[in-house]
């Protein structure tokens, strides 16, 4: 595994490199309602973006969590679980930090610099969620304080929502978190200079913390099946499109239409079949992609095409690949 970033402060528990678009994995879940405890430290992390540029970011870091994407802790719990999230604020700058997860934890008290806070909530409703810092307005997400949280249905079914409402079981699932960086903000923060979030206009764009072609290839430049959205003919693939950034992500699927199932845990029953799914700021959209008999390699990317660049260089940014192979 290649390391794409390193902690600025020498805190134990490096944020590891991450598998892009991998099967949602994360904290162990149990069949019965459980108490889940997650410890985050809020760290200053130097994120390496192409080409070999280090940008100061803030991240929720869990030493044991190997989830996909540096900003993507991939918390997975089961409906009914009681979830406790502890945060320890290790920022060296004077910013209190909190964690909210709209739909489950709408408000919370911030942890002062050097301090900690504990948040407990019950995962009442299955679905896909975004957690982030809202104590600093847009700044928290601009700096990278966000991640996905998935609540699986209590009945153990392989469905996005209880089977009663969505009879389409899926065969595979992927969580895709998009976000972006306006490096001018981060650089000003690193230098202790003033910045203006009203001029926010990003120049680096990510899917699960990585930019194309890192979203697709391994260190040797070969297609990495653990990074692409791997699927096979005849399968239903569940996609959790979670927007952790501050801009819209109109995600365009080459080769396929998807069926949008929910938007922010609300069933979508009007505009369902889409090849371009607009995921607004803070939104979580769940969709099922029926692979049918279509095989091949197809891009999935934002149609805000400047977001398919890395600092303006095409092709980069929020671009992933779907790889469909013949099923058995």
């Amino acid at each position, binding site marked *: 595994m290649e390391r794409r970033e390193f902690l600025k402060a020498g805190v134990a528990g490096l944020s590891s490199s991450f598998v892009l678009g991998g099967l949602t994995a994360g904290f162990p879940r149990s069949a019965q309602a459980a108490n889940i405890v997650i410890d985050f430290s809020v760290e200053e992390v130097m994120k390496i973006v192409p080409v070999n540029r280090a940008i100061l970011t803030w991240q929720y870091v869990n030493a044991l969590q190997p989830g996909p994407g540096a900003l993507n802790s991939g918390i997975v719990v089961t409906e009914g679980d009681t979830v406790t999230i502890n945060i320890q604020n290790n920022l060296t700058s004077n910013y209190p930090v909190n964690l909210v997860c709209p739909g489950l934890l709408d408000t919370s008290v911030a942890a002062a610099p050097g301090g900690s806070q504990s948040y407990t909530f019950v995962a009442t409703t299955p679905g896909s969620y975004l957690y982030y810092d809202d104590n600093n307005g847009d700044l928290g997400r601009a700096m990278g304080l966000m991640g996905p949280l998935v609540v699986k249905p209590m009945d153990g079914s392989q469905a996005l929502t209880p089977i009663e409402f969505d009879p389409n079981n899926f065969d595979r699932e992927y969580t895709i978190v998009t976000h972006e960086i306006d490096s001018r903000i981060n650089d000003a923060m690193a230098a202790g200079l003033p910045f203006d979030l009203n001029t926010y206009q990003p120049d680096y764009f990510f899917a699960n913390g990585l930019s194309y072609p890192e979203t697709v290839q391994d260190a040797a430049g070969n297609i990495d099946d653990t990074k692409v959205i791997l699927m096979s003919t005849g399968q239903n693939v569940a996609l959790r499109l979670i927007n952790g950034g501050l801009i819209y992500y109109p995600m365009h699927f080459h080769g396929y239409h998807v069926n949008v199932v929910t938007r922010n845990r*609300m069933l979508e029953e*009007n*505009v369902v079949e889409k090849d*371009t799914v607009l995921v607004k700021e803070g939104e979580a959209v769940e969709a099922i992609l029926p692979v049918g008999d279509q095989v091949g390699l197809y891009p999935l990317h934002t149609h805000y*095409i*400047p977001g398919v*660049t890395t600092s*303006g260089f*095409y092709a980069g940014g929020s671009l992933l690949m779907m790889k469909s192979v013949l099923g058995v």
Partner: protein
Amino acid sequence: MSKISRDFLKVILAEKPESAVKEIIDERKRAYTFGLGSIAATLGACAAPVDPNAVPPDEPERAHNYEQRVNSENVGITLDDPEDGDPTAGLPGGAPPTGTTPVNPNPTDPTNPTNPTNPTNPTNPTNPTNPTNPTEPVTTNPTPTPAIATQTFTALGPGLINIDASDMMDPNSVQQMSDGNALTVWGFTSSSGGAFNGDLNRLCPGPVIEATEGELTTIALRSQLPHTLHLHGLDVDQANDGVPSTSGYVSQMNPGAGFIPPNLQLIFDRLAPSAVALGNPFEYKFLAPHAGTYMYHCHVDTVIHMEMGMSGSIIVRPPDGSRNTLYTNGPIFDREYIWQLHTFDSAWHTGPAVSGSNTSRYNPDYFMLNGRDGLDILSDPTAAVEAYAGQQIVIRLVNLGYQPAVVNLGGIPFDILASDGRPVKKYFFSLFTEMTVGPGERYDIMFSMPASGVSNASINYLDIMGRNVLGTAVSSITTL
């Protein structure tokens, strides 16, 4: 779902006709998605539901659920009065809304355009579009609603379509803007040189391409520099997808050149089925999967090529080729427009070609509809809507640009019939007055022409954060 709400459902279901039962179940489903804790709130005033004499939800509660049903978050919808339409009254393919249409769904009715005795039917000898009609001018048409052309723009196809790319190799590739500036643009044209609507003076968008559902369409692209046609939304196979790294295309026959890292290109080249030399046509072949509205654009260095104007729209007609409905058994319309939404950043269109680090921050300053901006839009018959009172108008909204676009018709309520080439699953009559079309999205909307007057329709282009309006394209809707 708690026992108490199950009981309540039983009470309601017992008192409702079967047609309403599904609606109620749908509402309850939606209530569920708000979380178990909010079910009681969703059920509203009916907090004592175990009473067997409980009445069905009253109107305020229905309105509440109506808002949930529409999920205004997802398409940026401004809700009209829900009493304007009955959501159970029709589905795609059903009858047009009552009270707003002159079209009788019964084909034997003379007011139905599909009836040959109807003057708007092309087979009617009194219809000026009928070749058997010698010279009959519209003004002498004896009917109260004169005949009017259904389609307001030209198109290429179906069948074999030849497309030429025009780029920096062509010094005459300019677009005239309303302020008098001539911007350098690139684009796609027909082999005769015309772009959208056959216009020789408007290089972008490109010509509308028409295909027929289920039939083979071939687009032969010829270019002097590397370009592709990505068939956006048509779900074609990899070879015809128009992505340089994965599909065949017009290239320099030089693996290793271009923007794909050489090591990655080697992988893709094994998959790429073919490439042809510059100047030779590359043929894209596809079977259009479903009638509807699609896009095409160049996928080479897309951020630049698409913004420079290398994009256009594809319309797939129903299998029978009919031109007065969007898809098989869809609602009948009288007139069809296409509104292609996009912007220019003039800094990209003046001086040397923009590239690299200059393209991540995009600051558009021309806000267009069908390639026209400012007052030019109002004099463009493809953009300014004109029709007779009560006629059913379809507008295909195609966002070819990079900014989310908020579209309103000056308050005229409209229906959303389809998006991204597929009919919507639920159909709401005249519910919307405003909606957001994201980059790469298409929405097909329909409305009934007002009794009289002129409305100003606006397309507000938002910054990519969706927070501020960067600029507006204004068109008009005029009742003749």
